[in-house]
């Protein structure tokens, strides 16, 4: 690690307990992140929207490679059990079915 030139130069002058000369002022930020408004559509989409879009936008699904029903099931269960996505037991199978149909383009 390299001590920056500024502190080396000043270190030679005096051992200052505080060095406000280095303290570039950070300015407060107030920004806005873009909202996502794209939704899944078609038969069964309502459940998928409430389940998946609770935590993330739909690109997370649309960018996935073609996954088997068993891999999708593991993903949905991970979202449900670990990440506490609002998914009822009974909705897992219909969600997986939707995702498989989505990737099949049907």
């Amino acid at each position, binding site marked *: *690690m*390299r*001590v*920056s030139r*500024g*502190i080396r130069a000043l270190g030679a002058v005096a051992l200052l307990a*505080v*060095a*406000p000369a*280095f*303290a*570039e002022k*950070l*300015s*407060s*930020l*107030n*920004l*806005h*992140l*873009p*909202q*996502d408004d*794209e939704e*899944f*559509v*078609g038969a069964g989409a309502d459940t998928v929207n409430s389940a998946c879009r*609770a*935590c*993330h*936008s*739909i*690109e*997370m699904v*649309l*960018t*996935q*490679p*073609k*996954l088997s029903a068993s*891999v999708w099931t593991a*993903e949905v269960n991970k979202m449900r059990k*670990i*990440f*506490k*996505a*609002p998914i009822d037991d009974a909705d897992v199978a219909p969600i997986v079915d939707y995702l498989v149909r*989505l*990737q099949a*383009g049907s």
Partner: protein
Amino acid sequence: MHSWNGFTDRRRFLRAAAAFTATAFAPTAEGAATIDLPLPGGPSARALTTAFPQKGEMILQRTRPPLLETPFEVFDEGVFTPNDRFFVRWHWAVIPESVDVSRFRLGVRGNVETPLSLTLEEIMAMPRVEMAAVNQCSGNSRGFFTPRVPGGEWGNGAMGNAIWTGVRLKDVLDRARVKAASVQVRFTGLDETVTEGAPRFLKSLDIDHARDGEVMIAYLMNGQPLPLLNGFPIRVIVPGWYSTYWTKMLSDIEVLDKADDNFWMKSAYLIPDTPHASVKPGETGFKSVPINRMVPRSFFTNIEGLASTAPSAHAPFRGVAFGGDCGVAAVECSLDGGATWTAAALGPERGAYGFRRWSFETTAPAAGAVEVAVRCTNAKGVAQPLEANWNAGGYMRNVVERVRLVVQ
């Protein structure tokens, strides 16, 4: 299409291309620019976006929580990655959109004699250090895994190199007077879970690592305040280690008297404890460990995938390399599929953990095609493998990269 040095580069920009994926859902606005990464088996088209604050044009992997990839041509422009093009990756969507620097505090607590609540001014008044270091997502290049694996489907642009300015984590820990028998140090950022009861994103380093004098808390990135999405106002810098440990918007440091068993250390970001973190698809029964040190990589930046050139033309190649957890010893190119290697010229070292520019020149064949490969060997003698690794998490890809030069 772009043209560099007489090459016609077949970068697959699909400006104004229509479909985002081959589904009936086509969410991209008509006329939006897209790029093809390209990922084997697809879907491989991604929108380009300028919608994120403090960010220029980025590859949109996911809007919420943001996953933004650096377009690869940015790496051709210089050894440091501009802040407004630096990749972005968040786990949870509750990310503060405003930070009041006068009210911000960094807590240091847990197994310490003197718990602290530090203002930014207090942090910036501490001895200042700076270091160039590559920040790379554990899953950078995941989209190239074969067979494919679920996750953030990145191309190669979930990485960047910056000069980080800040303070040593060691100095902050010493100020809090860490108690004996401390085991790990856990970092928390300002981001929070969307769902109740879900695991907040927490990461830990061993106490000796945290106190090695290299791990930093940075308040400047390339000489400027960090963009919000890269962790404003302060983030952890863990030189040579994957980005998962580089906690953004760092707000809390907890010294632990036992190993951290939170989900993000115990169950996520695990790699097979095997050479190259590689296993066979479907293999089970191997030991897993938390991902840790980075491995060497090198990339072409003036050509992506395929380029055409005139017969017997001068063919210059260039790119960036990094050693992973140490410096670069050599970058070499091969024109014969890896049988023989010729040293590339190296640019100046700007810090062992940073990018190093490389360049290599050859002559195109009179006809036909030639494949050019690039390989980095790091200062510890570790070289990139010719065969890609595979693991279910899509972690630690560092296979030798290849481009194809076709005479037309």
